[in-house]
């Protein structure tokens, strides 16, 4: 077994919150190691619509959330502009919508400090030409789009540059306790295939929707409700900025453009486990039909895929919220499986297990949303620093992240880059304009799986669903001798991409799927079964949970 690591703080969970905590600790000079079961951003942080909240969605019912959002919206634009699409958002009023709600909406935004501007129907349509003719008026708000993987990578890179460590593919399998303190966290190194001990003084549970599992391993009860939301990805962008329905939050009331696609969202159903990410065709149809009320051409548009993620909703044990720090949530509503989870508060809670459970050196952070991840981390690390006797103040709101000098992400940036460099002949993934050089650099950085290339470079993300780039990239992995059977890796990647697609394939996408099948099975005669799979033999797990994405 590898010699045990020693550190001050172990952060469990490589989502937005965990990585933000790691960075905050690093900026305060605290040694920390982050452990994550799959790869950064494979939990809820990688399974959402990418909305950089202005907070307007909470303006009517939850002004504390709203205020948090607009504050953090501004902070993220300052520290991580390169992960943000500066596109604005609209709340549109359709016939049949409650006009009184619109009034409350404007008041609520004002009260929360969210700037709004009323637009006439004509002005709204000038801004969004595909808006339904029936839209009566709209309110413009400072919504934006945010690329969570880019944000996580930036924050992690910043933390690592300051001495922190990030261990992906190291799920927590247990803790070692001595009395009322955790002395070490036991993780399983998936690649090496063996357990590892990480000795520590403090533990931060930032496992989001899975916080309950970490709690269980530590011997403390944390009741998490998995609030599943389904999202549908359209093959093209349709809208300039975010488009929301101006009504009480319901299914299918938001369209978030993200790079070249549009993400339609979402549902809200309690499920038994955050690993339940299956998508039913009825969910897909519902998203399209609802969002098409705002943008009619969605109804005849091409769907790329659908996915689901679980909101990390915390249900406190008792009325007082069960802990200090953060903000008090509204009363819990556990409706059992199938219940609407919209009523459960989206603000966050810091749980200090010393006072709550008699476990002296662990804190958990639960709830929240990606837009407020930095603020959540600040609240938690303030608490932890106080306990540790660290006096460095939080600087995460003012220190910009690596890459910030690139400015906000522009849709055309990848195309402009290829044009500037005349790099047409270098394209490996043509849908997403990923070049040979980018793939080589990623492989040189240690990426060995096509799935990693997809997350890092958006390779295979586009409409053709990796018809050509998958085997080109597999070829490049083979050239670089990146270990493992490249054909098995290719088959694995194709099957990963396939999961969850059956709910969304018809029309154009059906033709694409059959062409892809004709290429990989018809021309290349790949069958995907019975091939010696070295990676499986090595115990390397799937890189993501089953079900979609």
């Amino acid at each position, binding site marked *: 077994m590898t010699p045990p690591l020693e550190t001050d703080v172990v952060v469990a969970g490589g989502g937005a919150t965990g990585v933000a905590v790691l960075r905050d600790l690093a900026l305060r000079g605290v040694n920390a190691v982050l452990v994550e079961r799959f790869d950064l951003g494979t939990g809820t942080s990688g399974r959402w619509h990418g909305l950089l909240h202005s907070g307007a969605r909470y303006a009517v019912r939850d002004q504390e959330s709203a205020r948090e959002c607009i504050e953090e919206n501004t902070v993220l634009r300052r520290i991580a502009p390169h992960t943000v699409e500066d596109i604005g958002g609209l709340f549109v009023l359709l016939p049949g919508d409650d006009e009184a709600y619109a009034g409350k909406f404007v008041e609520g935004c004002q009260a929360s400090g969210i700037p709004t501007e009323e637009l006439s129907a004509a002005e709204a349509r000038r801004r969004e030409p595909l808006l339904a003719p029936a839209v009566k008026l709209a309110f413009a708000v400072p919504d934006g789009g945010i690329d969570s993987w880019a944000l996580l990578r930036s924050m992690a890179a910043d933390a690592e540059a300051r001495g922190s460590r990030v261990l992906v593919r190291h799920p927590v399998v247990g803790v070692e306790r001595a009395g009322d303190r955790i002395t070490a966290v036991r993780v399983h190194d998936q690649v090496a295939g063996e357990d590892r001990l990480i000795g520590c003084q403090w533990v931060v549970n930032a496992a989001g929707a899975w916080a309950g599992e970490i709690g269980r391993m530590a011997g403390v009860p944390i009741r998490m409700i998995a609030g599943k939301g389904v999202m549908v990805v359209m093959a093209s962008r349709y809208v300039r900025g975010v488009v929301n329905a101006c009504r009480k939050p319901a299914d299918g009331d938001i369209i978030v453009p993200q790079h070249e696609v549009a993400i339609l969202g979402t549902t809200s159903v309690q499920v038994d486990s955050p690993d339940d990410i299956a998508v039913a065709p009825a969910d897909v149809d519902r998203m399209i039909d609802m969002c098409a009320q705002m943008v009619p051409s969605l109804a005849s548009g091409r769907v790329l895929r659908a996915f689901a993620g679980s909101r990390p909703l915390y249900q406190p044990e008792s009325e007082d919220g069960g802990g200090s720090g953060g903000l008090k949530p509204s009363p819990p509503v556990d409706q059992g499986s199938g219940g609407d989870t919209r009523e459960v508060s989206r603000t966050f809670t810091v749980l200090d297990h010393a006072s709550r459970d008699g476990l002296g050196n662990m804190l958990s952070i639960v709830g929240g949303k990606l837009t407020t991840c930095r603020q959540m981390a600040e609240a938690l690390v303030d608490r932890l620093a106080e306990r540790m006797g660290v006096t460095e103040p939080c600087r995460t709101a003012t220190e910009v992240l690596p890459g910030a000098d690139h400015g906000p992400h522009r849709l055309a940036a990848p195309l402009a880059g290829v044009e500037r460099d005349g790099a047409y002949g270098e394209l490996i993934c043509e849908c997403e304009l990923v070049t040979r050089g980018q793939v080589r650099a990623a492989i040189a950085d240690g990426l060995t799986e096509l799935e990693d290339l997809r997350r890092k470079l958006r390779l295979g993300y586009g409409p053709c669903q990796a018809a050509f780039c998958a*085997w080109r990239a*597999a070829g490049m992995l083979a050239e670089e001798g990146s270990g493992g059977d490249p054909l098995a890796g290719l088959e694995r990647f194709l099957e990963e991409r396939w999961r969850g697609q*059956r*709910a969304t394939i*018809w029309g154009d996408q059906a033709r694409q799927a059959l062409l892809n*099948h*004709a290429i990989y099975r018809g021309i290349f005669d790949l*069958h995907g079964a019975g091939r010696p799979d070295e990676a499986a033999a090595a115990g390397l797990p799937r890189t993501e949970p089953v079900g979609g994405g």
Partner: protein
Amino acid sequence: MRADVVVVGAGPAGLATAVRLAEAGRQVRVIARGNGFTHWGAGAVDALGRLGGERVERPLEAVGRLAEDHPYRLAGEAALRDGLDWFARFAATAGLAHAGDPERNRDQVTALGVLRPTCLLPEPAAQVLGGRVAVVNFEGFRDFSPALCAVGLRGAGVDAVPASAPLPPWDHARYFSAVELARAIDDDDFRRRLAPGLARAAAGADVVVVPAVLGVRGGHEPWADLQRLVGTPLVEAATAPPSIPGLRLFAAYRRRLDALGVGWQFGFPALGVERDGDRVTAVRSEGASRVVVTHCQELVLATGGVAGHGIEANRDGTLTEVVAGLPVEGFPDRTAFLGDRFLGEHPLGAAGVRVDAELRPVAASGDPVHANVRCVGGLLAGHDPTVEGSREGVALATATRTAELLAPTPTPAT
């Protein structure tokens, strides 16, 4: 517009049908929305590669084991034999000689190094691998990885070694794909400058595997010439679309169609038909500002299944045949379209129009829907051309049968 026979579709089935009908003496017009599987295939003639997942060694013999609604059973084994035979002669006349024997399948090298089963192979792909095999890419060509191909070949027991050959200076250095490279290799001067680097990369090998880019306009002559210059047998490996061997074949079909005086309306889909009783009297196709009506005596639909855009897979699980609204069995919902493994089988790939022994689409009762409509190729139910490796064979067999059925009855000499 008036035609005798309208063929809708310009993929492998449409092209073969149009040529055979014209050769049989009918006056033919082709209406097609665009190119199809000539451009997307492996560049070979698949008769029957797999049955029940198992590799087939003797395709003609295996026909007897197919279900009775399989296109080969409906068209008849003789039509398959004749179709393959005709194709071999047609291709050879066009400078695209094929090797192979319908009695026995052979291996085709692919860019992933997997050896796929097929029946007829164009000469540039026909050399059998043996001894030491050099797998050589042309530097900068993105659609072929010698390392990946060599892994696959070694897995099949071939002694394969990857290498790379430089391209001589040329006018497409900044951007090229298979098409531009193939056109450059059409030029004999370019080949003379290319050969030494290729020969060096192949040094010591008994056979050289290269991607299928050896010329697109000169038939097989660029390949033959390059092989002479290099001094070692060259084998073209099948790559992803666009299929350069498919482009060669398409060009040969176009020339033959022009020579036979076949009308060609390309780039516009057929939208519907006009009927009189149980006969189709005209095809309606999209024009720039009006529907174009082409009157016809006979209609042949070669529009491909779902993949070929001849059948639309609807959101609710139903299927629609797009030209004449022919009956097509749909699915209870769209999750039934596709299997749970991408590389497995997909029911949608086998979906199609049911026909009788005369290739006429039938209703649920089994009676033909129209007296003068035939269906050929991928549009037919009862087979999945990708899974069983039969696309070109079905195209040729059904084209042959259609030409037999529609050949003009001989008129008495006057």
